[in-house]
């Protein structure tokens, strides 16, 4: 599903190499976790994959299926089935959550040559998904993420994911700022979306999220590279001993 080879990325504005050769392969239906200390390049990887400005790919490739992601605009990547759940979902005053979601949904359908969906049908679809995530209808009427609590913002990300039904989901520190209950709710939302045809890349600093969203594979990222790969037990090891021990071991 996702195939990253030797990906090297620097900041556009300054001569700072962030990713120094990332190799990663996520199979269809798999859940991979990337863990790593702050500044290791985890979030940069998620931004580069989704096409945010400000980064320059100096080497390597990233494909989703046979699609060359790096060739596409962010909206084209989204229409092809890529989704990034933001670490800090953006507040957009003046744009209604529902308008935003419907515009996105129909834009993706249009890009794929499918018919647009009527407002009424769409409302039905969203209400159904929102109910599962315990998002009340009032939240849908409000401007995008404005005045939402940390937990509400993250649930809103998962709602968008559920509605847009992507093939490849990247969750960037979705657990940050969540209390235990909110984390459970968000995790249940993600787990409900797990599917043979859908893959996940879960980026997290802490192991606790992985108690709820159990990964198939865990990668440890440090200094712009993936330095270790293993099963779920690797996350537990990090939790127990911290990153420092692991770094020593790798070096």
């Amino acid at each position, binding site marked *: 599903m996702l195939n990253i080879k030797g990906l090297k990325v620097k900041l556009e504005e300054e001569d700072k190499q962030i990713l120094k050769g990332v190799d990663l392969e996520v199979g269809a239906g798999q859940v991979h976790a990337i863990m790593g200390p702050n500044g290791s390049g985890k979030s940069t990887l998620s931004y580069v994959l989704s096409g945010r*400005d400000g980064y320059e790919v100096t080497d390597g490739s990233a494909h989703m299926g046979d699609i060359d992601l790096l060739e596409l*605009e962010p*909206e084209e*990547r*989204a229409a092809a089935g890529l989704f990034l759940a*933001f670490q800090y979902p953006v507040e*957009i005053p*003046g744009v209604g959550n529902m308008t*935003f979601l419907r515009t996105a949904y129909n834009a993706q359908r249009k890009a794929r040559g499918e018919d647009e969906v009527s407002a009424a049908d769409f409302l039905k679809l969203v209400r159904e998904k929102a109910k599962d995530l315990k998002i009340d209808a009032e939240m849908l009427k409000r401007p995008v993420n404005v005045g939402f609590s940390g937990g509400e913002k993250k649930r809103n990300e998962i709602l968008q994911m559920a509605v847009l039904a992507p093939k490849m989901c990247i969750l960037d520190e979705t657990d940050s700022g969540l209390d235990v209950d909110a984390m459970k709710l968000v995790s249940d939302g993600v787990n409900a979306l797990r599917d043979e045809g859908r893959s996940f890349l879960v980026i997290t600093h802490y192991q606790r999220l992985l108690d709820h969203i159990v990964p198939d594979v865990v990668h440890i990222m440090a200094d712009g590279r993936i330095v270790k790969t293993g099963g779920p037990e690797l996350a537990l090891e990090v939790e127990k001993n911290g990153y420092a021990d692991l770094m020593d071991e790798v070096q």
Partner: protein
Amino acid sequence: MALPKAKTDATEARLSGLSIPEGGAAWAREARQDALNRLTGMGLPYRRDEYWRFTNPAEFLARETPRAEIALDAPGFEETDVLRVVFTDGVFDAEASDDLSLEHLEIERFSEAVTKDIHWIKGLLGVLETAGQNRVDRPLATFNTAFAEDGIVLRATGKVSKPVHLDYRRSDDRAEAVLRHVVRVENGADLTLLESGVGAARLNTAMEVDIADRGGFHHVRMQGRDHERRAATHVFARLGEESTFKSFTLSLNGMMTRNEVIVTLKGDDAVAHVAGAALGDGRDFHHDDTVFITHDAVNCESRQVFKKVLRNGATGVFQGKILVEPGAQKTDGYQISQSLLLDEDANFLAKPELEIYADDVQCSHGSTSGAIDETALFYLKSRGIPEDKAQDLLVLAFVAEALAEIEDEDLAETLRLQLAGWLERRR
């Protein structure tokens, strides 16, 4: 004080050969002659006037009426049930207008009202305009008092059931229009006035609105698609106790537009909201909102909310003032003026002013200009929304705060659709 020679010369040149309209009643002739005298005394505006620092008045003053291509008539409030009053090339068009009758409303052509020996506008025509010359000269309004021949005269005596729509149309690419409207909203009455359309190659409108105690006046205006519009407009309002004045203008395109709104809160507990959104694309867009609000009573509220979206060398101007007279305690004055600059060529010039002579007041003002929020843009794109559409969404969101000032939701939606349509055509 003697006027600078350049100003006197320019004024003489513009006024030579012009004379005040004939045939009015004695009081009307007097008001017009008085305006002409005042105009000669103050002179027409020129570039060195402080009040015209950001907007070159030359476009309004050329002797020859400029030619302006006749654009498609922008559809104006077609979905709204209105009493339609049409002016074609600045002249009342009875054929195209509805029958001028509506419950709780006296409605009459200005050109007829000024011929009557006894008429209620006698105490109003030129009076609010003259009072509105406080602190700064507004010679284009005085010009209007002196020379306007046509317009509409409205007197609301109760809650008027549907809006009056002034629909400006053109048939002549050199039409010059000088229109004068006079409005009186009686005690407890309520009136909504809509304005839209292309009007003239060069348009000068002035409106005097006198709102009695507990009266309400709602004004919603669209300045539409005519690129070559040169329009100088003035609205003068005087508010009685517990009365309400709300005015909103949506301006799209227009090479030279100056909209002045001058409000005096005369009765206690009155409320005045003046708002607008202007969207301009190209070097030939220049839009100026000039607002002057005087608080001259206790416990009044005023709000100014102006948004501008500019690109490709377009220029937006905002001059807004709140004057709080001695004794106008418990004043609540608010003013915000913001621009969204879609590229580096766009210009926004703002001059917010407060002048306060009372000690128990609350006044705030803010002015910002900024680019589109790149993080928000990326967020929208990452969800599959193409760049142009994502930008439109953010532009609409930016303008939403101003549109929210329109009380009637259907009218607000009408304007929002106009705006969305303009954005789509402009991609």
